[in-house]
């Protein structure tokens, strides 16, 4: 198991900006820390070798302490006068449990853990509703209905307590009816409790205070809606969870304005009990989306303390860097990007580091959780130390491909936690054979190549692109995308298009790019949301929930949203396989005069029949042209991959009907394209994730690196 884990408060800093590192030394042992610049994160002995460079005057010796992670979401209403004096009460909540058989799940609590005073309305281990009362002086009673609840069905739970008499009442009412099923009822109890003790407790929905500040226990899994609390016959609060969707705020419509906040990012913009199937957008009918879906494994921010900070020197070159922590037995790297100063460094090339896509795959558990993973990549998945640690530590949260403990899809991903697969040296089961790289480490093949060629390159992250828009790309003649830039916000998408249409040149180096729309959290950087509408992937968005909570845009594939990647870069996703890669064969377009510069010095018909990712330049995920989806008519299709294994299967959104032998006859291959744009720039796309893995072959001297360099040099100097 790993003994060092870390993350940073930022993923992109400009020279002169500070960055804070949060590290847990799991055995509270001391460790050394330093800053390194990453060039080649691939340890494959068949390649050029791992390469990092130590940044001077940036090292620390840290005493080390364990910093735990406490997942689980809830809604917290801070202590207020109207809550402090509560003795007799009535509470009503609509409840949609997703793991009703699990013990100790709190619906609502006004509870002081240290004195055991207050009340806890919950559901308990398949016994349905329960009510706990405590007077803070040792008197405590529990009332339980013993009526199992159905998963994913709506109920109304109500509890009454009359302090002077000690009488308590608990009711579970179903909002559905099945003949022969008794899942509703009511119970009364004459308790010895005569009050809820000294007030001061915080009202919490979906959990209870655990004693220590900011700590909660008894997390509920499922949806809650419309809690209403009365005290002594008067309304204390009535919370409308349909207000403030997309924010962390919880809105009280009652007389005391007992507004609250959400902890650890539960899901909003989800259907409530009143959703009738006539609206599909929470903005049009918030009352039908007045539920919040809480999960015991929600994690938005690990909340660790800073262990050390560093300020990037003003003259530090843009690039990918990492804080490296080591204790003699283990190490961890916390990667980040140093972007150029405002206006650029003078480099004519920018590489967009696809940090949103890194987040989408952050702490992915597919090969651990899904039996299909082995079938998808056609060999037995191999797990390294980081995978084994993730498998044992679900509190670190999953990726946008995983599901929560209750089976619902994980719709948001945050970088405010250790991300064990966003690491140099990390090998992923998704990375095929050979180097087995996916995302960040695979993208360093591009960085190493550019550095060895002496080509100045600024690194811009997705977050920079989202925050600054097209202006951040304006200084560059050429913008390069990475191996798998799959997740794009609208502002990122707009920025790339604006760059292209104003004369910029794009080298789209990977595949399955510009695929899913995401939204960034409107306030907190480093958190993204996806809705996997229509086609799904790992899970599928439930009916009526296609609209993002963050910002209210319709989610899904950009292709479905009218912006297919083919219309931007000429090619779009066609299929995937994760075993071995293949090669390209040149097509007649590659011999046209306007393509001559691309193939200068290249005599081969076969391109990229070598490489560190699956042994070929065409592999993992592949893109091809599709005129009906917007591939420009002036596109030159320069080369096409062939001879892929049977494991290369068409993407599901292209399958309009199934038939026997479909996989055998589907056109799953990569196409390498080039086209001039009306704005004066041009686009070159490789159509393959594995392309970059072929750059290092033969000391970076091969037809893949030659083509890449030919295009790059033309694009860099095109408008000079």
């Amino acid at each position, binding site marked *: 198991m790993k003994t060092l884990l870390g993350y940073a408060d930022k993923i992109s800093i400009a020279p002169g900006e500070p960055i804070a590192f949060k590290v847990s030394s799991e055995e509270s042992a001391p460790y050394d820390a330093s800053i390194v610049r990453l060039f080649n994160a691939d*340890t*494959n*002995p068949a390649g050029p070798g791992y390469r990092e460079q130590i940044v001077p005057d940036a090292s620390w010796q840290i005493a080390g302490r364990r910093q735990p992670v406490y997942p689980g979401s809830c809604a917290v209403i801070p202590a207020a006068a109207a809550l402090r004096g509560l003795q007799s009460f009535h509470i009503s909540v609509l409840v949609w449990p997703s793991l009703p058989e699990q013990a100790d799940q709190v619906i609502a609590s006004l509870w002081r853990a240290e004195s055991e005073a207050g009340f806890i309305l919950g559901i308990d281990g398949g016994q349905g509703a329960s009510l706990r009362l405590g007077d803070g002086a040792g008197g405590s009673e529990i009332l339980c209905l013993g009526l199992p609840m159905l998963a994913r069905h709506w109920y109304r739970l109500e509890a009454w307590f009359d302090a002077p008499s000690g009488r308590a009442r608990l009711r579970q009412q179903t909002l559905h009816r099945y003949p022969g099923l008794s899942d509703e009822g009511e119970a009364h109890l004459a308790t010895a409790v005569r009050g809820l003790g000294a007030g001061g407790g915080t009202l919490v929905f979906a959990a209870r205070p655990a004693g220590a500040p900011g700590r909660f226990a008894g997390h509920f899994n499922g949806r809650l809606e419309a809690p209403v609390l009365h005290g002594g016959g008067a309304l204390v609060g009535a919370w409308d969870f349909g207000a403030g969707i997309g924010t962390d705020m919880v809105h009280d419509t009652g007389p005391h304005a007992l507004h609250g906040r959400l902890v650890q990012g539960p899901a909003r913009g989800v259907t409530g009990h009143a959703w009738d199937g006539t609206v599909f957008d929470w903005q049009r009918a918030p009352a039908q989306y007045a539920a919040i879906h809480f999960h015991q494994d929600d994690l938005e921010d690990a909340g660790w303390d800073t262990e050390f900070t560093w300020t990037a020197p003003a003259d530090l070159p843009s690039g990918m860097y990492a804080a490296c922590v080591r204790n003699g037995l283990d190490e961890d790297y916390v990667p980040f990007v140093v972007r150029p100063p405002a206006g650029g460094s003078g480099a004519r090339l920018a590489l967009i580091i696809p940090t949103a896509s890194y987040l989408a795959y952050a702490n992915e558990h597919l*090969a*651990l*959780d*899904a*039996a299909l993973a*082995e*079938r998808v990549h*056609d*060999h*037995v*998945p*191999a*797990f*390294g130390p980081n995978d*084994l*640690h993730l*498998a*044992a*530590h*679900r509190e670190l949260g999953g990726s946008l491909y995983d599901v929560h*403990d209750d089976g619902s899809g994980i719709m948001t991903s945050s970088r405010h936690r250790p991300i064990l697969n966003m690491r140099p*040296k990390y*090998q992923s089961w998704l990375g095929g*054979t050979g180097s087995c790289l996916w995302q960040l480490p695979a993208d360093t093949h591009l960085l190493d190549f550019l550095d060895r060629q002496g080509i100045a390159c600024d690194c811009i992250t997705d977050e920079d692109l989202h925050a600054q828009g097209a202006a951040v790309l304006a200084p560059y003649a050429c913008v390069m995308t990475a191996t798998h830039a799959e997740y794009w916000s609208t502002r990122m998408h707009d920025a790339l298009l604006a760059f292209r249409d104003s004369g910029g040149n794009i080298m789209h180096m990977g595949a399955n790019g510009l695929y899913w729309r995401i939204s960034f959290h409107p306030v907190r950087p480093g958190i993204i949301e996806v809705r996997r509408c229509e086609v799904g992937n790992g899970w599928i968005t439930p009916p009526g929930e296609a609209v993002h909570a963050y910002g209210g845009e319709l989610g899904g594939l950009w292709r479905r949203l009218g912006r297919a990647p083919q219309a931007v870069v000429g090619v779009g996703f066609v299929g995937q396989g994760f*075993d*071995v890669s293949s090669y390209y064969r040149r097509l007649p377009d590659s011999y046209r005069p306007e393509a001559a510069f691309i193939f200068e010095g290249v005599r081969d018909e076969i391109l990229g029949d070598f490489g560190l990712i699956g042994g070929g330049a065409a592999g993992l995920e592949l893109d091809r042209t599709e005129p009906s989806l917007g591939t420009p008519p002036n596109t030159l299709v320069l080369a096409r991959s062939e001879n892929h*294994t*049977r494991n290369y299967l068409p993407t599901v959104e292209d399958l309009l009907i199934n038939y026997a032998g479909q996989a055998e006859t589907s056109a799953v291959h990569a196409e390498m394209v080039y086209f001039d744009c009306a704005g004066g720039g041009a686009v070159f796309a490789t159509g393959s994730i594995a392309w970059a893995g072929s750059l290092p072959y033969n000391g970076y001297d091969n037809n893949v690196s030659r083509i890449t360099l030919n295009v790059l040099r033309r694009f860099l100097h095109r408008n000079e």
Partner: protein
Amino acid sequence: MRNAATRIDPLRLDPVREFWERPIGHHSAELETVLSILRSGKVAGKYCLICLRPHAEWAIGRISGVRGIAPVRVDGPVFTSIEDAERYVFRLRWEAETGYALPADDVLAGESAGT
């Protein structure tokens, strides 16, 4: 659901020889059918590889199928070739599926099957 014993003909070894020649990569339809059956088990108890040293050493493990419980290494050799580890898992699954033991590695590797 067919009887497990009839899903794979244990006497047809040509797909096995093909796998021994190339565990990862181009496979015939016949071999893919066999692999689909052998790999169709539930997550719980499914074989996996545990990488002991990157690009150098792998052991056999089993996936727990329980969230929060990591794969566990099982008794067996340490492999210095990922292909050999694949062959080893294939052998375990074949024998569990069919009830028949496969010939030794050198016997399976000795007769080229082609693809």
